[in-house]
């Protein structure tokens, strides 16, 4: 695992890309040098001497470009709203790279990957997709959003060479319903065509109920799925034991043991 740094970074840009969705670009040479797709960083929103909000925000790495890191995030509360107000020229303290990335297997081969993104769960999946395509894999990317205004990254994923399908909960774009319906539909056609969905790997990131359903779908079809989890998190480095997730072998930490887990490991219904 690469060395972690708590780096004070310049904000290069912080652009709104859709309703409530932003991309923050920071200059983070030390973190960028060690980061891989699927890893995350932890961003301090408060000013250096302030005490509130005390806890950092964990954000999936969207892009790694030279010395720059981009983070795609959705404004969901006070912390992310404050983050969205940080303009170019400001500094932010960022800790990373944290956690483990996706496992993409050996390059080459003609394997297929189905990438499932729910809402801003798309963030860590874009650079994953680019890597998979670079490695010679075929990628089908399923985007699920609440409404058409929240569909992001579709154009760039197509440009990268992925086949992109969209669903929205309100039906304003693509298929109406959850992205997991889209996944089931897609697998049905693949199964009938190729007679085996087992050679296909699923990668998913999004809200927990979505990941649970993805996991169920994968299990039913004896497919492998990697899911990237979100959790209430404090330290990000495995010290506080706060971001526990129940697995078949006991509690594990999302920050240190994840955030990417094999879907079969997770005990979805804890209580």
């Amino acid at each position: 695992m690469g060395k972690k740094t708590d780096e004070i970074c310049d904000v290069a840009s912080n652009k709104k890309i859709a309703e409530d969705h932003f991309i923050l670009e920071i200059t983070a040479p030390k973190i960028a040098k060690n980061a891989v797709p699927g890893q995350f960083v932890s961003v301090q929103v408060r000013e250096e001497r302030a005490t509130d909000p005390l806890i950092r925000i964990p954000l999936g790495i969207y892009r790694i470009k030279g010395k720059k890191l981009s983070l795609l995030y959705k404004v969901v509360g006070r912390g992310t709203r404050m983050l969205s107000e940080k303009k170019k020229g400001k500094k932010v303290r960022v800790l990373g790279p944290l956690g483990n990335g996706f496992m993409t297997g050996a390059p080459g081969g003609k394997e297929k990957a189905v990438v499932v993104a729910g809402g801003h769960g798309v963030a860590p999946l874009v650079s994953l997709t680019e890597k998979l395509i670079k490695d010679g894999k075929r990628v089908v990317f399923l985007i699920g959003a609440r409404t058409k205004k929240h569909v992001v990254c579709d154009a760039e994923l197509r440009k990268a060479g992925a086949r992109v399908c969209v669903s929205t909960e309100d039906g304003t774009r693509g298929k109406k319903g959850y992205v997991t319906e889209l996944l089931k539909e897609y697998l049905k056609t693949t199964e009938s065509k190729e007679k085996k969905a087992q050679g296909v790997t699923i990668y998913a990131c999004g809200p927990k109920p979505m990941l649970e359903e993805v996991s169920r779908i994968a299990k039913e079809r004896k497919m492998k799925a990697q899911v990237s989890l979100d959790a209430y998190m404090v330290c990000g480095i495995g010290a506080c034991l706060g971001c526990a997730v129940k697995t078949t072998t006991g509690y594990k930490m999302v920050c240190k043991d994840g955030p990417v887990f094999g879907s079969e490991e997770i005990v979805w219904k804890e209580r």
Partner: protein
Amino acid sequence: MDLTVTIGGMKFKNPLWAASGTFGCGKEFVDFLDLSEVGAIVAKTVTLNPREGNSTPRVVETPSGMLNSIGLENKGVEHFAAEVLPEMKRYGTRVIASISGFSRQEFVECARVLSGKSTPDAIEINLSCPNVRHGHTKCLLMAQDPKATKEVIRAVKKRAKAPIIAKLTPNVTDIAEIARAAKDAGADAISLVNTYFGMAIDPLTMRPLLGNVVGGLSGPAIRPMAVKAVWEVYKKVKVAIIGIGGIMNGLDVAEFMIAGANAVQIGTTNLVEPGAMTRILREYKEYLKKMKISSARNIVGRLKTGG
């Protein structure tokens, strides 16, 4: 400048220690600071038997603080003594084990295991984790009951080879009474405070934000209350005090020491800024220099009141 402090007859290179449960076993922090610069590392609390910990969510943010209900997740004292402690002892600083239990016997057993081949420099007795229930007392926490506190400390003191530190809860009417009980039973020092009971609710779902419903509040939000607890004990009980509660910078360290602490522990701040201890130590040294105080020991209890 002399930063050394002596507690329980043991010399520490400086008065800034890492608090239990906020510093892992040290190795999580090697990318961010030189562990040998830390005055002491208090390891995560261990219990006689391994514990899975509480249900999730285990942490939640609150104004200038956080609530946690980790529930003493740990692999047990045997694992700690065999696998973790020997590695920690190579970090070039003092290592303090932290133990907890559900009966006097369990505390004593832990102390016995820690008196074997690899021994810590001191043992902190966690009588005050707000997230687990203790037997052996009518109260929720051992450290809410002076009698239970006395019995545990006395029993551990008999068994332990290392100096012992009693970590107390602030969730009591008279903290000095508990501190006196611990001292009379043989505690070499008192750490205060552990977290304050607290809870947070999501009004939209009407559900508690912690899986365990209630948890312990830490961070700068509790600092004034913690400073007051230190001062109360300093005034009334002649015992070495390790102050804990929301320390984020060098002036906060000074505040605790002026109130009567001989050393301090940095807790929540480690979790939000992993390299913080180096910065805080630097700031504390700058403070002493500015105040023309040549020894860290010389400011202990120097609170000026009245005229």
